[in-house]
């Protein structure tokens, strides 16, 4: 796929009275990219997404979608966008099929392709079984999936999902994440979430917002892997001082902490060789459990969003 930019936002600003919800936010989204919006509540994630979806006009700044100016040619640009708001916009008294048909018609899907598109998104989101049921009678997880399905029914090139995984059980969570990754192959996807591991497992790039401003915009390679992390291990035999000394002296190990007689946490620099060396040393004690914790993204989130200058 080409790397042409699907969304170009320049100096996007939105004020509500005296409150500046979004302040000069600029970024691009390329085809084949999944961008995660992170930030504490009230950071301006949803407002930014509403503006990108054309549901809210920015106070200042510009947005182009696949080269079309959203503010000058809204009708044309909006056909390229699929949007799932924080609360799925579903008519509770309609069936799933009726809602999808309505959305398809509303967004200009040709009559001939409608049935095929509806069948396709239902298969994609696992709604085959519930097409005839009323949306109001579906569980929260299914309603969320209907919300995703309506955002995809007109085959948009940009998909904007505001907290798509809220209210899902672990199985559905996994399915939806797989779906998002699949969508990210051919389209551009923007999603917002509070769940940091989700960003790590799904997104190619992360955008951190704080008080309406972007405080971090980079790929996850820089944010996550390659920087320091922790190994939390559980072993069969008590950790002896010699083993501990050997661990601490290994190249790349930053610190060793005993959490109990059989549990320890090793901070390391994140290089593969360091992790290998630590695992080698621990295997002599009968390694029972090993967890890697990539703390960096969380650290980044906390340090950037809490604002150390205060």
């Amino acid at each position, binding site marked *: 796929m080409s790397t042409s930019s699907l969304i170009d936002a320049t100096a996007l600003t*939105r*004020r*509500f*009275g005296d409150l500046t919800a979004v302040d000069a936010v600029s970024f691009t989204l390329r085809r084949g990219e999944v961008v995660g919006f992170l930030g504490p509540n009230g950071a301006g994630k949803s407002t930014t997404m*509403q503006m990108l*979806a*054309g*549901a*809210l*006009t*920015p*106070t200042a700044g510009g947005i182009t979608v696949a080269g079309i100016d959203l503010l000058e040619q*809204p*009708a*044309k*640009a*909006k*056909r390229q*966008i699929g*949007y799932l*708001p924080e*609360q799925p*916009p*579903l*008519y*509770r*008294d*309609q069936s799933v099929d*009726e809602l999808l048909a*309505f*959305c398809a*018609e*509303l*967004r*200009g899907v040709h009559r001939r392709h409608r049935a095929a598109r509806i069948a396709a998104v239902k298969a994609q989101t696992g709604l085959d079984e519930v097409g005839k049921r009323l949306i109001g009678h579906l569980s929260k997880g299914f309603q969320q999936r209907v919300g995703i399905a*309506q955002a995809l029914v007109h085959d948009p090139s940009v998909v904007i999902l505001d907290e798509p995984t809220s209210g899902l059980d672990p199985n559905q969570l996994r399915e939806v994440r797989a779906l998002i990754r699949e969508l990210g192959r051919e389209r551009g996807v923007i999603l917002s979430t509070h769940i940091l591991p989700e960003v790590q497992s799904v997104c190619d790039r992360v955008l951190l917002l704080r008080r309406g401003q972007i405080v971090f915009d980079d790929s996850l390679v820089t944010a996550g892997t390659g920087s320091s992390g922790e190994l939390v291990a559980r072993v069969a035999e008590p950790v002896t001082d010699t083993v501990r000394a050997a661990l601490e002296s290994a190249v790349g190990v930053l610190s060793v902490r005993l959490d109990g007689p059989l549990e320890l946490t090793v901070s390391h620099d994140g290089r593969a060789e360091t992790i290998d060396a630590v695992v080698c040393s621990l295997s002599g004690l009968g390694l029972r459990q090993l967890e890697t914790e990539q703390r960096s993204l969380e650290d980044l989130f906390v340090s950037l969003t809490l604002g150390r200058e205060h």
Partner: protein
Amino acid sequence: MFAIAKRELFSLFQTPLAWLLLAVTQAVLAYVFLRLLQAFAQAQGQLQGLPGAPGVTRMVAMPLLETCAFVMMVLVPLLTMRAFAEEERARTLVLLLSAPVSAAAIVMGKFLGVAAFLGIIVGLTLLMPASLAVGTNLDFGQLSAGLLGLLLITGLFAALGLFVSSMTVQPAMAGAGAFGMTLMLWMLDWGVERASLFEYLSVLHHFRTFLRGLISTADLGYFLVGIALFLYLTTSRIAARRSPV
């Protein structure tokens, strides 16, 4: 636009409220129709000898249409109150706002949907006097003028109802507000001098011209301007949901 109109119409039929309103309206109007017919039948003997005596159209059909308009004054606010208020409350309005349709198309779609439903009621009501065509001579000219007037007054109430609904997130408030306004328009000329401003603004004053069988540009203009004004105001309200304050 037609997608919105279609959805609005079907969603009305999905609520028991719409069916109930349809049934109640028909029952009330059928009762009124029968009473009018009875009164006409009783008076017929005395009227027969008089030259230029009022016919069945004037004695039965027109009062029925006026009653229908009166019912509409109550009914339309009940139907339009949910149009925007409920969508705002259920957070479904964003579906329309983020769709590739203009604010004007959203409002027109809603208006057409509600108008189609009201058209069904008017059509069913009209069947009653039309059934008299079997045994009597109806004045079809006067009847169609009355029908046009009824459609216009209903359209005006609907546009007004949509506007009030776009101003609040509480359907009940929208209903009460719209009813207050339709009632006001209806009563505006009670006890005022002829040819005053109040009389001119009164909806009944203009409607009665149609019932007499007259279609005048002034009355036509009153209703069309009124409908256009409220639809325009609603459109600006919806557009303002998107644009900065």
